[in-house]
């Protein structure tokens, strides 16, 4: 099962700049686990401590939000495209606010 994973620009520092990766897996969770294992620091940006998706990140299989399917247990098929889409606000530097 080869799945194309689209990496959004804010997470590309974690994948050495790659915007798409071909990964194996039978469910969204398996694909994400492989992605996290092969990247640096992407896990904490996408998944919370308990392994659930963070509330500011959505994952789509094709056009469908996995929350409307079976969440991270949604099965994927050869050729599926998995998109990670985080919330993006814009230009103001967020850190200076904290």
């Amino acid at each position, binding site marked *: 099962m080869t799945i194309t994973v*689209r990496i*959004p*620009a*804010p997470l590309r520092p974690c994948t050495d700049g790659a*915007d798409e990766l071909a990964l194996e897996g039978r469910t969204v969770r398996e694909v994400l686990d492989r992605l996290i294992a092969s990247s640096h620091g992407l896990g*904490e*940006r996408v998944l*919370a*401590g*308990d*392994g*659930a*998706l*963070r*509330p*500011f990140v*959505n994952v*789509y299989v094709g*056009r*469908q*939000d*996995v*929350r*409307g399917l079976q*969440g*991270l247990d949604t099965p994927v098929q050869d050729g599926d495209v998995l*998109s990670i*889409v*985080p*919330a*993006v*606000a*814009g*230009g*103001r*530097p*967020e*850190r200076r*606010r*904290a």
Partner: protein
Amino acid sequence: MSAKDKRLGELKAAIPEVTPREAEALRQRGAALVDVREPDEVAQGSATGALRLVRGFLELRIEDAVPDLDRTVLVMCAGGVRSLFAAEGLRRMGYTDVRSVGGGFTRWKQDGLPVEVPATLDAAARERYARHLLMPEVGEEGQLKLLDSRVLLIGAGGLGSPAAYYLAAAGVGTLGLVDDDVVDRSNLQRQILHTDRDVGRPKVESAREALEALNPAVKVRTFAERLSSANVDAIFDGWDVVVDGSDNFPTRYLVNDACVKLGLPNVHGSIFRFDGQVTVFWPRRPGQPGPCYRCLYPEPPPPELAPSCAEAGVLGVLPGVIGTLEAVETIKLLLGLGDPLVGRMLVYDALRQRFTELELRRDPSCAWCGEGRPFPGYVDYEGFCSARTATSPAKTAT
């Protein structure tokens, strides 16, 4: 007998006539009343509820206004003569029940029937919006609707600049601009409302000048303040559509919450480096409700995980693409055209030059827009958006 009189005699024999009073009764029962007089005559007054289709373009435009060939059509001119010729033309097109209003608008007024002075475009407006007037989807009626519309733009920066510029050009009558920032030279790589001369000036002021220079008919209302829970209700009062071109999470959630509270469509765009997103959040869309921003992202990322263009940069043209798409969606919403981006998000990848469409889900248990839920009230947005990661509860539906 002159050729004209001969022809009129033939038409009178062929076209049934109704009195203005009979015409009004028929109109109230569903017949189409069509005023075929010239624009300068109509500008002085016309029968209330009449369709105004000038004689010269009648056959070309009638089908958009009256698609049903079996609907009764009542044709009216000033005195009941031109309407006979017009009625004949409609019969030839296949309209099965066409009648002429005897005595025309002159007798209509004498009989004390209802008259209105329709809003019309003046000559300068006809020239300015000529390309819109040619399109039946806009036309004079649509253009008048745009001129009567009010759009509030949050941010006069990268996204707000192209959006406001095109909305002003299109003749959206009143534009509101909310921005408390001043123009910085580093803005000019993408914020096309401002010029080098404007560095140091409030963005809303330089934006107002640019928009008024483009289209003096547009009224620009400026709010040189930071949107907050304290001022949002006053600022959001009385607009048709809100365009979110803001640059930070506290404002995005506040804009969302206020739009949910007031039932306003929220045209949302965001950009990062070479990527952009655009959608319309509108939980109270009549008949077809869509999600709100909180359905999509119940919580913002903590500051240490939040991506920012100020640190990562953005291609200067990118907000042009996304802000222009926001303007397109805004005009579609104002005119009720096409299929708005409600419940769908366009994701733009400039490097691969690719648009991807994603389906957005409405969260039926959303605390903000869920059916029948009372508005929970505004929150402390700065605090909400600077919460640490560890305190963020995970989403349950994974």
